[in-house]
């Protein structure tokens, strides 16, 4: 224990003097800026301009009845033309004729996704039927799943991403930097001629990088709380600690296979990118193939999302937590073997 604490103290001093702590603080400040200054929503769909030149403005009235945003409607042809000229991504709809014989023209740039055009066509079709008084009696109902959860603003939606992936990079990359520095300085050779051993060496690195991740995570969560989130601190930081431990152990074991950072760079970057792949599922929840779900950061990301954005909504944390624990245990075995059989044998 004394040995591991002694090594952890050394690693903290080195982390400070290598500037790693400063880097973590700088990233945390950057995340604060994102949390405080990102808008609540980003307009992701194409804007629409509608010119209703039909007799009696029947389409505009039907649209208002259906709850459409009245801002989409141009005042006149000149206004419509001005809107179309101002934005290359805009979708234009001009409606002419009487309610019984309406003529609809949709204008779209070549780079506007066909799905956006199709959605607009379907919407216009429904509004025109409404304008003609043609309803088929179909009742549409919206059921809110997990009603306790609430839609988070964009700035807070990013918090789980900021936490999980940054902590992963911290553990995986910076622990490799430590190992290569020790290799380059030859201090590992001196360490091998002393009774330090493999386990305290790993434990010290783990303490430093999990500690750094928790300090970073605490700072980011505090910013999220100031912005209105009510996170489950224990759950979020506990999951973050596990996730960071996994990446640190994996990174330490992985670094033993390389002589220096330049040899490590591309394979290491590959692993880091793979670890970040669940971001796509997070941004587009419909995209969640089995291989992405198998990446440990997937479980960590969605667990932390629940702990930060929807605490206490009853989602089952046991299964993903067990999976992360299992991955961490595997990484610990890999790391222990790699340190003992490679790093301390070179």
């Amino acid at each position, binding site marked *: 224990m004394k*040995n591991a604490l002694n090594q952890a103290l050394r690693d903290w001093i080195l982390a400070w003097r290598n500037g790693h702590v400063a880097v973590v603080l700088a990233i945390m400040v950057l995340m604060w800026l994102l949390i405080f200054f990102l808008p609540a929503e980003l307009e992701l769909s194409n804007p629409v301009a509608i010119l209703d030149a039909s007799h009696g403005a029947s389409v505009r009235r039907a649209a208002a009845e259906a709850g459409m945003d009245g801002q989409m409607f141009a005042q006149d042809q000149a206004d419509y033309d001005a809107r179309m000229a101002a934005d290359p991504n805009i979708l234009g709809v001009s409606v002419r004729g009487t309610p019984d014989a309406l003529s609809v023209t949709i204008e779209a740039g070549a780079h506007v996704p066909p799905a956006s055009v199709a959605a607009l066509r379907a919407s216009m079709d429904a509004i025109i039927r409404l304008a003609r008084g043609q309803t088929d009696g179909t009742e549409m109902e919206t059921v809110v799943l997990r009603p306790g959860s609430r839609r988070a603003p964009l700035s807070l939606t990013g918090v789980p991403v900021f936490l999980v992936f940054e902590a992963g990079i911290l553990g995986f990359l910076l622990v490799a930097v430590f190992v290569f520095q020790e290799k380059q300085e030859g201090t590992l050779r*001196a360490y091998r001629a002393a009774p330090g051993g493999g386990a305290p060496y790993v434990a010290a690195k783990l303490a430093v990088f999990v500690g750094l991740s928790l300090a970073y995570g605490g700072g980011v969560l505090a910013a999220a709380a100031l912005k209105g989130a009510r996170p489950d601190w224990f759950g979020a930081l506990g999951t973050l600690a596990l996730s960071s431990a996994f990446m640190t152990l994996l990174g330490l074991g992985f670094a033993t296979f390389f002589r220096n950072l330049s040899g490590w760079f591309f394979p290491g970057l590959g692993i880091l990118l793979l670890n970040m792949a669940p971001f796509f599922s997070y941004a587009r929840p419909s995209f969640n193939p089995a291989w992405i779900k198998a990446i440990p950061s997937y479980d960590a990301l969605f667990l932390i999302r629940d702990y930060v954005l929807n605490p206490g909504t009853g989602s089952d944390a046991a299964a993903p937590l067990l999976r992360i624990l299992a991955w961490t245990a595997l990484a610990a075995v890999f790391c222990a073997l790699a340190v003992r059989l490679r790093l301390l044998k070179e």
Partner: protein
Amino acid sequence: MIEVRDVYHDYEGKGAYAVQGVSFTIPDGAIFGFLGPSGAGKSTVQGIMTGLLRLQKGSVRYDGSDIGSMGRSFFQRIGVSFEHPNLYGKLTGYENLKYFAGLFQGPTEDPMQLLDMVGLADAAKRRASAYSKGMKQRLVFARALINKPSILFLDEPTSGLDPATAERIKALILEKRDAGCTVFLTTHNMLDADRLCDTVAFLNSGRIVAMDSPRELKLAYGSRSVKVETRVDGRIETHTLFPAREEDRNQLSQLISSGTAETVHSQEATLEEIFIKLTGRGLG
């Protein structure tokens, strides 16, 4: 006592041995010098003896116990000073020693006292990366002493040091020996070896080619003659005399008493000359 028996080591496993059939014994409290040029296999043998290299063939025993059976407790007993200073550059000299002291169980030396002993007390709070090569070498030497080792492995401990500091380090090595520490000294500095070692072994191309005390080696391989330079009528004349022969002894007395002898040198061979004689190569 350290017993090394018939040690072989092949780095690539292709039958090209870096050391082969190396055997020697070091009694407790002795300084054993391992001499040879670069690439002779000195560091390989030291690596095997310190457990940094796996023992492939042969045996290394400490007080009768095989090195393979000693585990981590073995490292409690030894101190290792490396030829190339391997320090945490971002830690101060004091922090380097303090950290290594924390790796050992049991009593350790006071880092400040050690720094003072090697003349680094004033630089204790400076980062090791700012040290000169000689200062780093001294810090590595001090680190080797931090756990009060009973066996010291020193690889070129005076390399890069100015003469005064080198003398200080040599005096410390002799002090350790006198206190009962066994010292395994790897060097290619024959003068250091001559001054410090109780026994020296010459290593060439992975094999020991001669091993004895420096004095015995010099007696065995020196010519036991005396060179006298005299000045007669302004000319320098050189006489090589063999004290074992009566007429030479008489001539030596005559030259000295006549006052013509300007210099007298014993023709004792140096360790370097003996090494060249034995191996046909120098130590550089």
